[in-house]
């Protein structure tokens, strides 16, 4: 029997869903910061579309990574969806700069992310990659993302579909 995809609900993935310890990143290189594995009986699309006053609007996405010196690491961020065996990976979002420069997550500082038409199935992964370019005067070597810094934050809205066997 086929799987039937039913109710959708919106969810926000946070920093703790992706990593809970400091992540060391290499400058001028794409680093896997963290990944979220899709739980059983779910399909997840990155982004969430809300209808506000009749218009389709994306939900607030926010990302900022601070180094151990309490300053922001600048660079590029991309969100990818990969299957469990890394046989296929697609980029669903890529920003030319960090998603936000403000100190705290806010609606104004966020990127509005509409629901993507590519869905990660059970056991597939939603990955966040970071390409650090500068931290203060540092532009080479490695830099750890400080997980204890309150400014290190991820707010990634996703649309969760529940899947069941008929």
């Amino acid at each position: 029997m086929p799987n039937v995809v039913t109710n959708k609900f919106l969810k926000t993935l946070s920093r703790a869903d992706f990593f809970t310890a400091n992540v060391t990143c290499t400058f001028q290189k794409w680093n896997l910061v963290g990944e979220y594995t899709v739980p059983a009986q779910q399909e997840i699309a990155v982004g969430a579309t809300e209808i506000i006053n009749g218009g389709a609007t994306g939900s607030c996405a926010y990302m900022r990574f601070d180094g151990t010196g309490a300053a922001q690491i600048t660079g590029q961020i991309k969100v990818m969806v990969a299957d469990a065996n890394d046989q296929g990976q697609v980029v669903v979002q890529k920003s030319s700069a960090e998603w936000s420069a403000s100190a705290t997550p806010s609606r104004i500082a966020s990127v509005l992310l509409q629901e993507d038409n590519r869905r990660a199935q059970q056991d597939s992964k939603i990955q966040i990659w970071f390409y650090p370019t500068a931290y203060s005067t540092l532009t080479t070597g490695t830099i750890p993302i400080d997980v204890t810094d309150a400014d290190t934050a991820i707010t990634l809205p996703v649309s969760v579909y529940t899947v069941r066997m008929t």
Partner: protein
Amino acid sequence: MQLIPKNVAGGLSLLDIAEIAVTKLVSERLLSGFIGNGTVMSGAVKGVGGLALSQIDGKHAKLIAAGMLVDAVEDLAISINPFGLFARAGTAQNADAGILRI
């Protein structure tokens, strides 16, 4: 070739069965743009249409009516769906058009 003995159901040939099936398929597709498919409304419209057609004399009118009535019952069964008995066949994935699963 008689599938059902004449003394049981008046007799239906394979060609008759095919006519019913083709009517069911074609009418379902033609009408879905106007009255939908697999809903109580579409089932009711097809049911009324089928019953009206069945009143017309002639074998083909009866066969076409049979095709529409089969489709009407299918729509009603799917839409009312008692205890989740009837899974929607064929149309369940239509809403997923354009969705790429990874």
